[in-house]
C-alpha cells in the first residue's frame, strides 16, 4: 500500500491505495477549510508534518502521529522579532541526512529541526544573504521551495529559491555560495542576464546514485548539472514546452527525470489540452511522452511545483501528481500507464508519498 499526503487549498487529505490496481481512497482529512501548503511523513519517526497558511493567523507547522488525530503546533517558525519582514508561507519540508528536517519558505527562508519537527531554528547565514542582497520574489512569492540533501553527507545541501537561484553549502548551512553558472533567464533582457541572480528556479532535484547529478525545472528551461550544482546546461529542447513546475527522478537511474510541461508562462496549462508527463532516461538528450491513461482531450490542467512525487524505483517506480483541478493521477510502472487516484478534491498544492 502507498500513502499519499496531499496539501490542498481546503485542508490536508491522506489517501491510501495499491499502485498495481490504482484503487485509492481518502483515509483522513485534517485542517478542514485551511490552506495546507505541504504535508509529508518524516521517514525517521513516521510522524506526519504539515504546513498551513491561515489567511487569518499566518503560517504554521504542525505534527501528528496520525493525520486523522490531534495535531500539535511546532515551535520556532518565525523570523526574528522586530525586523521588517514577516514569514509568509512554508513551502516544503524535506528529511535531511543525519536526522535533520529542513523547511523552506517565503521570504526565502530555511529552517532546521533536529527533534523530528517539534522545534525549528532559522538558518541565519542564508537569511543574512537574503537581507544583504535584496532577493526579489517570483510570482508565487520569494519561496525557498527545493531542498536537496546529499546522500550520506549531512553537511552538504543545495536549496533553490524563486527568484534567487541555487544556493550550495558544504558545512551544514554555516556558509552558502551561489550555484547558478549556465542558467539563462530568458525573461530578462540579454544585457541584464550576465550577473543577475534573479533566477526563477521552479523545482530542483538530485540523483540519488550520483549526487553530483542534479536537475532543474526553470522558468523557461530544463537544466542538468554534473558537478553538484556549480554549473548547468540546458536539456529541454526535446520537450513540447520547457516551461513547467514539477520534477521527479527515479532514484535507481541518475540519467532519469520526469517533468510535466505547461504551455508557457503566458498560459500555465497542459499544452493543447493533453495531460502528459515527459520522461528522459539519457540525461535529457531525448524525452518521451508518458500519457497512457491521462486525460487527453480538452484537459487544461495546472500542476504546481510540489504536487509531484514518487515512491519506489526502477520498473516499479511509482509517480503521483495532483492538479489545481483537484484531480490526482498515479502510475505504478514508471509512467508507462496512469490511473486516476482521486477527483474533485480542492486544488492540490502538494503531493508526497510514503
Amino acid at each position: 500500500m502507498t500513502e499519499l499526503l496531499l496539501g490542498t487549498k481546503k485542508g490536508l487529505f491522506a489517501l491510501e491505495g495499491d499502485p498495481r490496481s490504482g484503487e485509492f481512497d481518502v483515509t483522513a482529512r485534517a485542517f478542514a477549510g485551511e490552506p495546507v501548503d505541504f504535508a509529508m511523513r518524516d521517514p525517521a519517526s513516521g510522524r506526519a508534518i504539515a504546513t498551513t497558511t491561515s489567511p487569518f493567523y499566518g503560517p504554521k507547522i504542525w505534527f501528528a502521529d496520525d493525520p486523522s488525530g490531534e495535531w500539535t503546533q511546532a515551535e520556532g517558525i518565525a523570523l526574528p522579532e522586530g525586523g521588517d519582514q514577516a514569514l509568509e508561507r512554508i513551502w516544503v519540508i524535506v528529511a535531511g541526512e543525519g536526522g535533520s528536517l529542513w523547511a523552506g519558505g517565503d521570504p526565502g527562508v530555511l529552517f532546521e529541526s533536529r527533534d523530528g519537527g517539534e522545534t525549528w531554528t532559522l538558518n541565519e547565514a542564508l537569511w543574512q544573504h537574503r537581507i544583504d542582497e535584496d532577493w526579489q520574489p517570483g510570482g508565487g512569492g520569494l519561496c525557498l521551495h527545493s531542498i536537496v540533501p546529499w546522500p550520506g553527507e549531512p553537511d552538504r545541501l543545495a536549496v533553490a529559491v524563486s527568484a534567487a537561484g541555487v544556493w550550495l553549502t558544504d558545512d551544514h548551512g554555516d556558509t552558502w555560495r551561489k550555484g547558478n553558472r549556465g542558467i539563462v533567464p530568458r525573461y530578462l533582457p540579454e544585457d541584464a542576464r550576465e550577473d543577475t541572480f534573479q533566477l526563477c528556479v521552479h523545482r530542483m532535484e538530485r540523483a540519488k546514485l550520483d549526487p553530483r547529478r542534479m536537475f532543474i525545472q526553470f522558468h523557461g528551461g530544463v537544466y542538468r548539472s554534473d558537478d553538484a550544482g556549480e554549473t548547468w546546461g540546458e536539456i529541454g529542447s526535446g520537450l513540447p514546452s520547457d516551461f513547467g513546475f514539477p520534477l521527479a527522478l527515479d532514484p535507481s537511474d541518475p540519467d532519469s527525470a520526469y517533468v510535466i510541461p505547461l504551455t508557457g508562462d503566458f498560459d500555465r496549462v497542459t499544452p493543447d489540452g493533453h495531460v502528459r508527463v515527459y520522461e528522459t532516461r539519457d540525461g535529457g538528450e531525448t524525452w518521451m511522452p508518458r500519457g497512457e491513461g491521462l486525460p487527453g482531450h480538452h484537459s487544461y490542467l495546472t500542476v504546481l511545483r510540489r504536487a509531484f512525487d514518487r515512491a519506489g524505483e526502477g520498473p516499479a517506480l511509482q509517480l503521483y501528481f495532483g492538479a489545481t483541478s483537484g484531480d490526482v493521477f498515479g502510475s505504478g510502472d514508471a509512467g508507462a500507464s496512469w490511473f486516476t487516484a482521486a477527483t474533485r478534491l480542492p486544488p492540490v498544492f502538494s503531493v508526497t508519498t510514503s
Partner: protein
Amino acid sequence: MALVCVHGPLRKLAGGRPEQEIGGATVAELLRGLELEHPAVAGWILDERGVIRRHINVFVNGERGAEQTAVAAGDRVEVLPAITGGGT
C-alpha cells in the same frame, strides 16, 4: 489594566476565558502582554514585526484600533477574526 476579550478560535489559545485583564499602554503592548501570559497565542495575532495580522480586527471600546492605539485602565479591547471572503 484593560479588559481583553478574545473571540473565535483564538480564545482557546489565549487561556479560554471570555475576558481577562491585561496591562499595556497601547494595543501592541497589550497584545504582547497577552502573548507573555499565554505563549500559545504568540504569532497568531501579531506577526514577527509586531503588526496585527491582516485579517484580525481589534476594537477598543467599540472603535477600530491599531497597534499604536492608546489603551487606558478599564478599556474594553476586543480581538476577533475579521469577516472576510469573496476570494474563495
